[in-house]
């Protein structure tokens, strides 16, 4: 099976579990529930073809304290998937606001495919910052770390501004994947959404990213940009 098809299958598995578990949720204090969250699904205004980007797309199935957690992000441009990453994690509530998440990460695009063990913390920090911080251990002694943060600034009960940040760091060069050691890339976004319903919120915003160090050099050598500032239009949703 091609990797992409396999990942669609995982997605369908999550979806069907969700339908199946809804029927079980009676007076049970801790029913098995499922949630799908699309943090960002957006068109970006770029100089060439406008990419369709999804980031912070997640789903979980489970109970209060233990969940099976799927995360994916990627980019679709020129009729092909340019970037695709998925993570399949076991998530366990550790403290009032923090979950420990451990599992598997696979980078499918750009090729070559890279597999990692993932270990992270996801939760709500004081002052209401949503944080997802993880380290990854790959084959051939590869290591990586990622920090994602997000904040919700309410202008009204439905009009909400979300600054977000993502930083990636790698332990060593991976020439095949175009990744250099050290701080590799950073992304900053500012998105203004309107919650038509809690579950459904279109947004507009801006997004800026930059590649640093060797990663930047690899991009330059391949004739790619090392930074970009883009207008975005998209949808945040969950169910």
């Amino acid at each position, binding site marked *: 099976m091609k990797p992409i098809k396999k990942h669609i299958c995982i997605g369908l598995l999550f979806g069907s579990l969700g339908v199946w578990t809804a029927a079980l949720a009676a007076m049970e204090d801790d029913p098995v529930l499922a949630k799908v969250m699309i943090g960002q699904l957006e068109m970006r205004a770029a100089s060439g073809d406008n990419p369709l980007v999804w980031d912070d797309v997640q789903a979980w199935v489970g109970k209060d304290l233990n969940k099976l957690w799927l995360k994916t992000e990627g980019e679709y441009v020129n009729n092909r998937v340019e970037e695709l990453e998925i993570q399949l994690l076991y998530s366990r509530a550790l403290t009032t606001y923090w979950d420990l998440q451990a599992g598997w990460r696979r980078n499918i695009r750009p090729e070559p495919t890279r597999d990692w063990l993932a270990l992270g913390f996801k939760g709500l920090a004081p002052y209401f910052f949503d944080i997802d911080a993880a380290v990854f251990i790959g084959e051939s002694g590869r290591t990586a770390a990622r920090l994602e943060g997000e904040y919700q600034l309410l202008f009204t*009960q439905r009009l909400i501004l979300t600054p977000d940040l993502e930083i990636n760091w790698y332990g060593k060069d991976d020439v095949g994947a175009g990744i250099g050691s050290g701080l590799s890339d950073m992304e900053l976004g500012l998105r203004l959404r309107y919650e038509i319903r809690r579950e459904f919120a279109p947004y507009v915003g801006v997004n800026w990213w930059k590649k640093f160090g060797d990663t930047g050099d690899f991009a330059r050598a391949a004739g790619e940009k090392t930074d970009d500032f883009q207008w975005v239009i998209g949808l945040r949703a969950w169910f």
Partner: protein
Amino acid sequence: MRIGYQEVNFTGHRRIATAVNGTVPSPVLRWREGDSITLRVINQLAVDSSIHWHGILVPTDMDGVPGLSFNGIAPGETFEYRFDVKQSGTFWYHSHSDFQEQTGMYGAIVIDSRQPEPFTYDREYVVMLSDWSDEDPEKIYAKLKKQSHYYNFRQRTAGDLWRDLERQGLKQTWNQRAMWNRMRMSYRDISDVTGYTYTFLMNGRTPADGWTGQFKRGEKVRLRFVNGAAMSFFDVRIPGLEMTVVAADGQNIEPVTVDEFRIGVAETYDVIVAPKDDTAYSIFAQAIDRTGYARGTLTPDPSLMASVPEMDPAPVLTHADMGMAMDHGAIDHSMHDMDNAAVTTAGRVGHGSTEPIVHRATEFGPQVDMRAEDPQYRPDDPGIGLRDNGRRVLTYADLSNLYPSPDPRDPEREIQLHLTGNMARYMWSVNGIKFADSEPLELEYGERVRITLVNDTMMNHPMHLHGMWSDLESGDGAHLPRKHTVIVQPGSKISYLVTADARGTWAYHCHLLFHMPGMFRTVIVS
């Protein structure tokens, strides 16, 4: 009595309710003290059902709690309830299965006294308050687990921050916000489920329709208020009329005259009003979070309507509501891991517990988000949103039994129970342990025990003990009011005495429907 599906339309959309004999609310049952009652309840639903007689002293196998009193009533089956009525007053009944109560299964019980009543009136009405949602309760529960603030559209905004900065400057604003920000809690979190989905009903009438009760000028009218809501507290007043509260939870009290009272989920209050003019009056029951209201009209003439008052501003929680320490802290991390609470010798009856507040090890973990540092005993507090509002508001300190306490003994021991939860994960528990993982609370038949409830959350919890009275320590130890449901205010503690005079297996739980699955204990009297 027939439990079945019934089409209703409270919002402009047709929905299927679970109803007794085809009506929402369920029919008023009228009994007489001393009667022997036989009720045949047939379940025509596709799922199990049950009826619990709330506040009625019945044998343990007639109490109607599936899994504790009996196995529930299977689809198509009939269950025969038989018991003797040993009391009088205003009570109610409801389903104790799944979340059926929210979908329409609640009704009032009026029991006439054998003795002449200690007050007079010319006519009476039941006023049943409730909350209706077009959403399935299971869906509401799932939404709360996925996004606990789903129904709260009163969150703090950038505009509020700006106003605070303008009014009081950066330093003061920062200091004020710091605790909430560090705790990751919202001071505007009053009700889990709000008027966003609920339509508040008075005797099954929406605010648009309104319920109407007629009177003749000069008559005394007894209103029997019942809060049959799933999740909503109400603050009740009748602008232009003072209300004399004569009974709480069906039990006569020393009459007290007020302008307003708060009725927690599952409580009942009987009030007498005496309209002196030929005008109409609004019965106004605003939800505690001010996201809606139920209303009715008392009028001498159905064509005469009264104006409906504006709702009060939405209340916000204060440091005191969080049980913050004023000068001394509580004891953390101590005692043992047993579910049964600290058992100590207890002081004399009347003013509640003086025992130290002990947060057990089980209260620490992902299932709990706060522990009250210094919960105060404050029966004289009308509660959030009602303090200093310029009206005479009933408090628990106003409740005094009309008769001497039937059991004047001092308590032999004290049980301290902490009401706990994690709002963000939407988990609720007692002492940090949810019902599914808990051990029963054991009482010895005949003993007099003090139960002290400590609220380690920022919500009001109406705690209901089945089978036995909760003799609330509201002040006068010789005249403790007997209640079946006691509000524990956020960040406070409250005590009552229980005479374990009913053998069997009983339920003890928070009566907020979506807290109940976790914040629940079995009580065994043997």
